[in-house]
């Protein structure tokens, strides 16, 4: 244990009462030399239980348990924050549907929009002075909206959040109607503004019609750049926090090693790891080699030689690991741990982007989890390109489309599926229903 950690303890309890060890994702445990005791402890780590609890339930004496955890940490397999903040299970399993999209959407904070841009815009003076029962601010606003209304999204027009619920959309529409419904200007002299006001009302009504119809709204949303829901934003925030924490833990570990060992000793040790990496490579074991290189790099960061080898080995190791992951995912799935399986399949696809089973399974599991549906469609299509006659893929794809509100596509895929599997009555029934609602 490091001094800083013992120092944080203010009570009679040891720090292990507050420390919650986490498994890190960067090292593949199956390729690291572990003692049976270490392995036993490692697989108890669930990211929720405190170190104290883990040691107690493993039956090791406290001292022994601590030593084992330290060793696991040195091997880069677990980590923890010095404060020992406790995480809830939920936080650790964020259901962020599309991390990259979410990140993209949240990264660039737009400048706050000008609330009343029409006040400073230049308009045709003859319009501002035309004979009409309207004050200048109103004229400007009408001219502005009329000019912009076809560029603005339905959301901007109604001045609602992208994920606003039905109730708020309706309220917004009612509010705007009060301004632009022709009755507001009943029997008023409006001159050329009359048709503008009517046009705006029609445009706003159109926006409301689309947004208040779930199917139409889905289809419309698909034409807009992705924007995360508040829940997704929250999940992304949590994910980011976890990633930052992982990063902090890695950094801490590195600092600790640096502190514990003089530079020369570290460099020597790094070299040792590097040598064994090369050794493993010769024995055609890139996974173990990769682990060794990573240890070298954490002891002696920035070493060009190490980095070069890491670059070389990473894809090979990744591929082998991906193959193992594939098996693991299957067993996870068979045990009903579909969340884990999904994560593992996604990791497989990182290195084996055309793995047909992983593609199909990832799509299916995403569908079941109802998230990242567009990515799922993408996987499904890729899988179909490899296996065009796979009926199961057609069914998954159809259901994905249905979920996305793209009924026409869903209909097409179901029809293809039904050709392959005419006996599936459920699908036949759904097909009929879809055709009926399409009129």
């Amino acid at each position, binding site marked *: 244990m490091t001094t800083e950690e013992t120092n944080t303890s203010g009570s009679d309890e040891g720090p292990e009462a507050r420390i919650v060890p986490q498994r890190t994702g960067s090292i593949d445990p199956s390729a690291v030399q572990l003692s049976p005791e270490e392995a036993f402890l490692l697989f108890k780590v669930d990211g929720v239980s405190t170190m104290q609890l883990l040691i107690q339930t493993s039956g090791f004496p406290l001292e022994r348990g601590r030593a084992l955890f330290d060793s696991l940490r040195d091997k880069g397999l677990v980590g923890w924050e010095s404060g020992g903040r406790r995480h809830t299970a939920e936080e650790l399993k964020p259901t962020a549907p599309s991390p990259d999209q979410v990140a993209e959407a949240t990264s660039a904070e737009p400048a706050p929009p000008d609330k009343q841009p029409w006040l400073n815009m230049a308009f045709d003076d003859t319009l501002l002075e035309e004979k009409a029962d309207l004050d200048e601010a109103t004229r400007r606003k009408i001219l502005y909206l009329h000019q912009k209304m076809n560029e603005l999204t339905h959301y901007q027009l109604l001045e609602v959040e992208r994920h606003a619920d039905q109730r708020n959309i309706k309220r917004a529409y*009612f509010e705007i109607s009060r301004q632009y419904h022709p009755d507001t200007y009943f029997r008023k002299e409006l001159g050329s503004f009359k048709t503008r006001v009517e046009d705006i009302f029609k445009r706003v009504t159109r926006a409301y019609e689309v947004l208040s119809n779930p199917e139409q709204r889905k289809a419309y949303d698909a034409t807009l750049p992705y924007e995360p829901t508040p829940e997704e934003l929250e999940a992304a925030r949590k994910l980011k926090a976890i990633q930052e924490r992982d990063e902090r833990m890695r950094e801490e570990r590195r600092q600790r090693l640096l502190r514990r060992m003089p530079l020369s000793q570290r460099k020597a040790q790094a070299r040792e790891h590097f040598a064994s990496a090369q050794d493993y490579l010769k024995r055609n074991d890139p996974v173990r080699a990769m682990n060794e290189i990573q240890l070298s790099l954490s002891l002696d960061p920035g070493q060009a030689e190490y980095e070069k080898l890491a670059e070389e080995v990473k894809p090979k190791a990744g591929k082998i690991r991906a193959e193992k992951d594939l098996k693991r995912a299957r067993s996870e799935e068979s045990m009903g741990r579909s969340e884990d399986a999904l994560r593992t399949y996604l990791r497989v696809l990182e290195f084996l982007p055309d793995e047909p089973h992983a593609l199909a399974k990832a799509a299916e599991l995403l569908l079941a989890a109802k998230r990242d549906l567009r990515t799922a469609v993408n996987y499904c299509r890729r899988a179909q390109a490899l296996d065009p006659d796979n009926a199961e893929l057609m069914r998954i794809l159809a259901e994905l489309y249905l979920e996305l509100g793209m009924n026409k596509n869903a209909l097409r895929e179901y029809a293809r599926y039904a050709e392959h599997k005419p006996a599936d009555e459920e699908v036949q029934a759904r097909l009929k229903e879809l055709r009926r609602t399409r009129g």
Partner: protein
Amino acid sequence: MERVLGIDLGTTYSCVAVVENGAPLVIANKGGYRTTPSIVAFTAGGRRLVGHLAKRQAITNPQNTLFAVKRFIGRKWNSELVQQVKERMPYRMMEGPHNDIRVQVQDRQYSIPEISAIVLTEMKRVAEEFFKAPISKAVITCPAYFNDGQRTATKDAGRIAGLDVLRIINEPTAAALAYGFGKKIEKRVAVYDLGGGTFDISILEIGNGVYEVIATAGDTFLGGEDFDQRITDWMVFNFAKEHNLDPRTDPMALQRLKDAAEKAKCELSFQNEVEINLPFLFSTGKNRTLHFQKMLDRKKLEELTIDLVERTIDICDRTIKDAGLTPKDISDVILVGGQSRMPKVQELVQKYFGREPCKNVHPDEVVALGAAIQGFALVSEGPGKKEETLLLDVTPHSLGIMIVGGYFQTLIQKNTTVPTSASHMFTTVKDGQTSARIMVFQGESKVASENELLGEFILSGLREAPRGEVEIEIRFDISADGIVSVSAKDIETGRQQSIVVTATSGLTEDEVQRMAEDNRDYLLSAAQDEEFEKQRVQVEKIIEEIEKLLPGVGEVISASRFSREALNKAEATIQRARLAIKRRELNSLSDSREGLERTLTTFKSLAARKG
């Protein structure tokens, strides 16, 4: 602020309301009734009777008593419905010059809007008498399911009555406006309106003074009158079974049967059985008079009419489904229309919606109240306007045109919020085609001719070119008033052409103007008649008094030659007055009244001298 009348022009009853001091108020007629029968009658002397007066004399004057004309307003003579029903009406109906319907009364024909205008004139008068001030602006209601022709005809009726019709709004919508008035609510409600002649169902979204109609449907020929008809048929059947005679051949008997049917129906809403008793109903012509007497109970009535009630529920169901809703999504059900008082109706409505209907509105008055509220909101000004009621109404029927093969192409879907517009690209179908005929329809059938023809127009002056080359964009607009207008644009040249869709039935502008003038003339002459009558009564009274004094006065002044002349002069004045009465000359009658009054004063003092 200027007062605006809200008039519920009902099939059987009409009602007028005004917003006064911020609150809508129903105005009772002179008899103290808050609704007035929509009945117009003409006396032998050509005088009009409206409302209760007309209703009271209906039995003795059936051919000249017009009721339920709303069932025919804006309809075409050759429509199946009209052909079926016209035989049952005791008054004479005939074809008008535009395939419209006219009624013959004595030696004159009237259009349907003219008859409705007489009712509207009466409602206007009721309000004006109450406020002792002229009121000319009005919002008039019509059934939600009325088509463009029926709405235009209703508006024409208003104009003939000398009203400035600000807007025609739907009856169920008006009911909802009254229901939500002054309340801060956010709710989705259904209005079930079963009146005398029509059934309507509307679903509205109410949010703090804004009323969005989301769906509306109905049947413009389903109402209390049909319930009455079933009972009448039942009575006729029983009478025929007993006597082997059809009592309907006698208009007076038919009117009595009809009245008795309605009375029995209304009573059965509150009690379990009624006795229908019509003594001396029908004369056989062989010195024998037949009676009708029979018990009718609620169960029998329900048996006779259950299919009508079920039809309304079917329409509700379709409407709710069309709106993508289920009955559970409705948080309040408002019952409107007198026929909704029937227990069976309430029972089935409650069963369908799974909730007890709202009891806080007066089914006979809400529609007029709502119309007044809308009128008030329209004319209100200033910052307060932002708080007023705003109605987002829809077009109840789909609008479209006939395309090749006689099919109907929808351009604007029913239940679309108005104002709205739609464009249709039209290309020539023949080489060298320079004109095209566009027929505009309203309705839901895929076959154009099964829908209501709104009008047609010819698009002319097209460039001569191979077929398909000339492209014309036709634009359809429905205004907040629900009025359809069409314009066409040549895509190539950008030339714009605005088109008037000439109504295929209904009145021409000239006719409306002329009828409005006739109405004014009648009112003027009726007012003069009234004045004349008043003067006549007074003059005759004076003459009577003078003649009583004559002998005595003669005695007093017999000595003087000069006075003899005065006596002769007095007699001449009486003669003149009698002549004015005979000739019905108001001016000379008032002149001679002044002379008579002077004479009377002189005579009185002379007579006093004698005594």
